[in-house]
């Protein structure tokens, strides 16, 4: 048996409002272990706005500013500016948004903060649709996935927005992908992000939603691990928009990942082959970036 080197100190309480098997909940638990007590979280409308909230199940031991849907990044910018004026350089300001609040309605303020290089960590916990309102598609929903609006009973025919590359293109000091199934890697990345204080840092966390994806809750981590093993969600870091480091190399066919989830069950063998082809192409592009630096 392998023992993970993860701190026992928790800043997230159990018994919160999340669904069974919530990847976003695992993500928060791990992230706070890395970020520690001196953290302020800014959370826009998303599942975590609910999970963190209701008394007496309020689940986090750090301060939370629940903000408007479009503006997690810039609320964090304002908090940072205020703390700086008070001479507080110790506290880490973290915007913690879902994929809607990062990829869709949140991208304008996120891009603004990144261009100004505001001193915040922006975390997108990505469950690939609007889960809090009942599984509507977002621009993070992957090709082939069914939601309630893709449209109707149809499935999504366009690709997932490549968020980390968009953020890397801003030239931020640190952009990384992380995955709840790789806790040590995730914690290392959050610690690194905290230490690279001074500008905008972006972490894209893959966070399973078994409720929305049509999978048994006990598969939350398994599905997440397969996403990386299939190269659907490669784990890598980009420093200053230039230096790429790949953390995991996958070799598993995408079928293993797709077949576990109801949201993909309508796909034909041909559709799945098409997804495999696209994943291979995307991974080749990523590998080229590795060889450049």
């Amino acid at each position, binding site marked *: 048996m392998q023992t993970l080197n993860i701190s026992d100190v928790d800043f997230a309480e159990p018994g919160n409002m999340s669904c069974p098997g919530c990847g976003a909940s695992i993500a928060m638990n791990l992230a706070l272990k890395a970020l520690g007590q001196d953290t302020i979280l800014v959370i826009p*409308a998303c599942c975590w*706005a609910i999970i963190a909230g209701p008394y007496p199940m309020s689940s986090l031991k750090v301060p939370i500013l*629940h903000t*408007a*849907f*479009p503006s997690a990044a810039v609320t964090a910018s304002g908090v940072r500016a205020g703390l700086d004026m008070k001479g507080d350089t110790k506290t880490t300001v973290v915007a913690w948004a879902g994929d809607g609040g990062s*990829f*869709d*309605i949140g*991208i304008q303020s996120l891009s603004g903060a990144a261009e100004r290089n505001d001193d915040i960590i922006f975390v997108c916990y990505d469950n690939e649709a*609007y889960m*809090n*309102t*009942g599984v*509507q*598609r977002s*621009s993070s929903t992957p090709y082939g996935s069914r939601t*309630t*609006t*893709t*449209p*109707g*009973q*149809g499935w999504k025919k366009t690709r997932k927005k490549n968020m980390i590359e968009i953020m890397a293109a801003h030239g931020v000091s640190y952009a990384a992908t992380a995955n709840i199934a790789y806790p040590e890697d995730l914690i290392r990345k959050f610690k690194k992000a905290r230490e690279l204080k001074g500008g905008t840092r972006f972490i894209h966390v893959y966070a399973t939603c078994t409720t929305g994806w049509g999978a048994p809750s006990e598969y939350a981590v398994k599905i997440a691990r397969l996403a990386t093993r299939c190269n659907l969600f490669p784990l890598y870091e980009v420093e200053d928009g230039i230096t790429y480091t790949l953390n995991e190399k996958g070799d598993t066919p995408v079928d293993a990942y797709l077949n576990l989830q109801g949201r993909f069950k309508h796909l034909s063998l041909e559709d799945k082959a098409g997804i495999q082809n696209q994943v291979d192409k995307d991974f080749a592009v990523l590998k080229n970036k590795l060889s450049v630096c």
Partner: protein
Amino acid sequence: MKPAVDTGKHFINGDIACAEGAIAAGCLFFGGYPITPATEVAEHMSERLPHVGGTYIQMEDEIAAMTSILGGAWTGKKTMTATSGPGFSLMMETVGLAIVTETPCVVVNVQRGGPSTGLPTQGAQADMMQAKWGSHGDYEIIALAPSSPQEMFDLTITAFNLSEKYRTPVFIMSDEIVGHMSEKVVIPKKEAIKTISRIQPRGKKNNFHPFKPGPNGVAPMPSIGQGYKVHVTGLTHDEKGYPVMSVDTQAEMMERLLGKIRNNLDDIIMTDQYLLDDADIVIVSYGVSSRTSYTAVDMAREQGIKAGLLRLITVWPFPDRLIKELALRVKGFITVEINMGQISREVERCAGYKAPSYLAGHPGGAVVPPEQVISIMKEAF
């Protein structure tokens, strides 16, 4: 596959009835963005539109949802979006654009408790003044308040008709309770549904003025690509549509925008009146609050109080004249609404010093109980 008009008796919630009403009215484009408690409108449009030759697009936010329906409307299609409080706030800039460009479209607000994120899963009627004044500048707006799933269907058709007739955005000011409650909804035969489409220009394509009012104060509306020269702008513009930065043009444009509503009040304003003829005390209400108001009237009558109900089906433009006339002959007014005093202020304004006006309000999350209305009534009169 279901036809556009799904004739028959249904047991559906208000959001779905609203979507069915839109499709029955000829809506072919919906710009959607999920938000509780309006998401079901988007989901149902997403399901239905592709089967009736229409298009559902899920947008990246409410700014996009609202603006996309203006784009769709200028191609000649009937278009709609649906949202709730926070999304309604984000749409407000574009509401002004729709008004000034005289673009027909329908915006559904399934209201929830506010301010801000508020009570996403519980009802309120606290965006009523935002519906009137939420966008900057001076304008008239049309807003309807359905009180049941059946009215979500019926008034959505009416909203499209008014929108097309007056070339203006029309709000459906629903709420979470009406949106999420399921009741019987009767969808009539297609032939029995009256739908209106915008008047299109005819004749010469040269020298056409897309903002020159016709007989009812509304200009015929061309579609982009139809051959008429179209220049649509949010800047102050003359009848040709081109920007003119002058005091005179501003005055002419404002007269046109306000006039087409203010000069057609009898056509736009709809009310329902219950035991009003001999009433001493008038309960004014709208939407879901009117449902408990009917009960309040009955309870008052049982106790020998001559109460009557004026239910506003059209909330904006406000029925000033009707309230002013009532104020001359009744003891006073009680406005029942799920906010802490919005439409009650309008009633107070119209009643002036002729009759006192009271509020039976609620901070949000539930309806005003009829007992509260009776208690205020007894205390006040």
